[in-house]
């Protein structure tokens, strides 16, 4: 029994590790400037995880293999209550490894979250609502028009409650897809109209909740032109699984052109670009 158990534990360990190293399923290609650092931290962590997992399972299997009861009445187990030296040793080693790992991981976090978006960033206001995304662009004047929930009118497609009386809202555009420039810092101002949603583009390697009553700012730089899927990753109700949109990363000149367009033209052009670009080729 002991040998069978040991072998099964080892086979499970081997298969689990193989599934991870097979490379068939992994992150989609990262397209944000912080993605390489984050992927590196992930790789380091998962190597530590893999080694610890394998070592523990091999050790467990080995004990089970080796120390079976022989059935002899006189042969007894080793009488030991443990070893303080070993306890200290493995406590210190694991503490050093785990906490080092945790501290290392903070650099990516600090770069992304502990500072403001650099000046000259491209700002988009993201307003989520049950099962739909709204992206609000400031237009030529680089000033977002005022919004207020009392102006929300689904009939006139004013989903974000843009205040028409505010002069800076005249050149604003609102679309259902996110359009951002390549190679330039982007700042998202995240808001929600109803419940908590979550902004999630796997290629960007970050998520952020959109919390009603709060405006949360995040910033990043995308460095590859293309069309990417954008999902809601916080349970927001019945059709949560369908709350999908696209993110278009465009060359700077396309963005400049868009910025000069009035709302209808802006939306039509975005639609055109959406049809033009293809999703990355996932196997």
């Amino acid at each position, binding site marked *: 029994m002991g040998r069978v158990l040991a072998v099964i534990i080892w086979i499970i360990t081997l298969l689990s590790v193989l599934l991870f190293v097979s490379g068939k399923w992994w992150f989609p290609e990262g397209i944000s400037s912080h993605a390489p650092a984050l992927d590196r931290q992930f790789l380091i962590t998962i190597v530590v995880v893999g080694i610890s997992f394998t070592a523990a399972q091999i050790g467990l299997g080995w004990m089970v293999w080796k120390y079976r009861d022989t059935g002899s*009445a*006189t042969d*007894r187990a080793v*009488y030991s209550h443990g070893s303080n030296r070993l306890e200290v040793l493995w406590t210190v080693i694991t503490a050093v490894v785990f906490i080092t790992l945790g501290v290392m991981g903070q650099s990516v976090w600090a770069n992304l979250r502990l500072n403001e978006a650099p000046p000259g960033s491209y700002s988009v206001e993201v307003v989520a609502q049950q099962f739909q995304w709204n992206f609000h662009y400031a237009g030529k004047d680089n000033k977002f028009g005022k919004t207020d929930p009392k102006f929300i009118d689904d009939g006139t497609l004013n989903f974000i409650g843009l205040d028409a009386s505010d002069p800076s809202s005249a050149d604003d555009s609102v679309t259902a897809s996110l359009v951002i420039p390549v190679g330039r810092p982007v700042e998202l101002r995240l808001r929600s109209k109803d419940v908590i949603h979550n902004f999630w583009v796997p290629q960007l390697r970050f998520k952020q909740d959109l919390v009603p009553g709060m405006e949360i700012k995040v910033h990043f730089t995308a460095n590859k032109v293309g069309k990417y899927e954008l999902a809601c990753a916080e349970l927001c109700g019945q059709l949560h699984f369908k709350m999908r949109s696209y993110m278009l990363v465009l060359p700077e000149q396309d963005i400049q052109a868009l910025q000069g367009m009035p709302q209808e033209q802006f939306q039509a052009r975005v639609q055109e670009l959406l049809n033009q670009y293809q999703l990355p080729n996932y196997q």
Partner: protein
Amino acid sequence: MATMVTTRPVIQKGAGGGSGMPGPNGNGSKRKEPFPEPDGRANRYRIGTWVGLASIAMMFTSLSSAYIVRSGTAADWLPLQIPRVMFVSTAIILLSSVTIEFARRKLKQSFTEAYSKYLLVTALLGVAFLGSQLIAWRQLTSQGVYVASHPHSSFFYLLTGAHAVHIAGGLMALAFLWWRSSRHHSEVPAFVAKRQATADAVSIYWHFMDGLWIYLFLLLLLWR
């Protein structure tokens, strides 16, 4: 490693555990009657009360941290005029703490009649406290301040209400003690110890509710 194979039998079924073995209990006891209550068992009422109070304290900590967080995050936080009658409530509950302490001490000195009397006085003061709180609530509602009026009023009703529920629980315990104190009692040490322990437990609880009220009152009064 020296090993020995012995012929000592394993315990047989139905042997009543240790008593079937030659001396494993080591206490030489051959009694077969129900257990005597070992010394110190009466302490469980005091321990249990403290443990329970830890959990009650946690709940009020969570509610009051919510109060503080909520007061800081919103623009809709309005100051609340705390009804004056709450100072009377505070005086009443402080007094009741004194009377229950008298009750406890009288019991310790075996003055059971005085004990019983002070219990009754404490319980009546507790009822008076609840009545005074109710007046405070009615004063607020007459001003048009309800639970949902604004967050400060929500917390006001919630905190005073939750405290009142706990006071009502204390009143039931007091009533139970009072009912028991009026009956005949034994002077068997275990019984005396148990009676004292339950009285101590209730008084610990009552003092705690007193302290909790002072804390809540100051929170509502000063943290606006």
